C-alpha cells in the first residue's frame, strides 16, 4: 500500500503562488522523502444487492456471490461496482452473469469519477517536511444487472 516517493521527482503539480507564501522556501526542490499512503476509497452506500468488486478476492467467488444474490437471494436486480483496475473485472462479472442467464438478464452501465485522497507523510520526522494530502481522480463503473419487467 505504501511506496516511498521523492517529491522532487514525482509529478506533484506546482500549486502556484497561492501556496508558496505559507510553505518553507523551495518546497519543490526539498529532498525530504515522503511516504505515499493511499487512503481507502470513501465509503459508499451498501444495500444488500450492491456488490463492490475488488482485485483481491477470487474472481469466481465474486461471480458466485452475484449469482447467489440473483438466483437464491430473490433480488430482481443487483448493482456491480468497480473502481480503477477492478472495472474490467466488474464488466466481466456482469457479462458472465448475462451469458449464463441465456439472455434473461439485462445490463445498464454507468460511469463516474471517484475522488481519492493520498496522504504524504515525511519519512524522517526530524526534517522539515510536513504531512500533506493530495487528491486525485479515478474512474469507476456501476453496472445494474436486472431482469427486465415482463411487458
Amino acid at each position, binding site marked *: 500500500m505504501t511506496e516511498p516517493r521523492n517529491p522532487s521527482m514525482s509529478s506533484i503539480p506546482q500549486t502556484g503562488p497561492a501556496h508558496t507564501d505559507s510553505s518553507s522556501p523551495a518546497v519543490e526542490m526539498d529532498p525530504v522523502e515522503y511516504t505515499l499512503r493511499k487512503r481507502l476509497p470513501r465509503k*459508499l452506500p451498501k444495500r444488500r444487492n450492491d456488490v463492490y468488486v475488488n482485485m483481491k478476492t477470487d474472481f*469466481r467467488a465474486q461471480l458466485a456471490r452475484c449469482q447467489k444474490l440473483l438466483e437464491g437471494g430473490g433480488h430482481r436486480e443487483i448493482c456491480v461496482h468497480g473502481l480503477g483496475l477492478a472495472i474490467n473485472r466488474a464488466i466481466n462479472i456482469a*457479462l458472465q452473469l448475462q451469458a449464463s442467464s441465456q439472455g434473461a438478464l439485462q*445490463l445498464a452501465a454507468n460511469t463516474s469519477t471517484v475522488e481519492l485522497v493520498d496522504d504524504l507523510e515525511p519519512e524522517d520526522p526530524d526534517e522539515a517536511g*510536513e504531512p500533506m*494530502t493530495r*487528491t486525485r481522480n479515478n474512474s469507476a463503473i456501476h453496472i445494474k444487472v436486472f431482469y427486465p419487467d415482463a411487458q
Partner: protein
Amino acid sequence: MNSAICGTTMEQQPTSCSPSVQISLPLPKTAGENNFRRISRTEDSIPYPIPGLAADILHMRVKGGSKIRSLLQFAAARMQGEVRNPNGMSLRQVVFTGSGRGVTKTITCVEILKRKVEGLHQVSKLYYNTVKEVWKSPQPGAPGITMERRVPAICILLSKDPLDPQEPGYQPPQIISVPTEDAERRRGLLRTAHAHSSPHTAKRLCLDDSSACLP
C-alpha cells in the same frame, strides 16, 4: 499445450477459455525457449452495440497504449467546434470504444471529456470483443494454433443532442457546479492544517455523488 496458452493469454479472468481450466504456469516457465509466437491478432469489427448511430460518426478506438492526452486533444477539438467536419458542421456525437486493458482508459477519457464539454448525454454498453489470434510453433513444420478469446469491452456514446432516457445505460448530463471547482482548488498539494475543512467537503461530495451515480 492448449491450456498453457490459455493461461498466459487470458486476462486473469475466464474469457473464452472455459472457466474451469486451471490457470497453468506461464508459458515461459513451462516451455522454456520453445515459446509459441503470436503472429497475428485480429479483432472482430462488430457493429456498434448502440442502436441508431450515424455511419460517419467520430469513433475513438482506445487501446491499452493510447495516450489519454492525444485522444482527448483530438476529440475535444472536434466536440468544442475548433475543428470542423468536412461539411462545415461541428461534431454532435462521439463514440469511445475500448477492450481489455483499454477499458479503464476509455472510461477515464469519457469522464474527462464530460467535464471539458458540458451537457453531454451518455449511453454506455458492455459487450465481449472477440479477438482471433494465430500462434506459431517454434519448431518448423509444427502446426500453429488459432484461438479465439473474448475480452470485455465497453462502448460509450457521448452526444450533445438528447438521447433516449429509456435506453439501458443512459446517463443524463451532469450539472457541473461548486464541487468540481472545489476539487480543482484542492488539487495538488494541501497542508493538512489547511485542509481541515476537506473531510467535511469530502463527505458532502460523497453524499451528492452517490445519490447521483446509483441508477
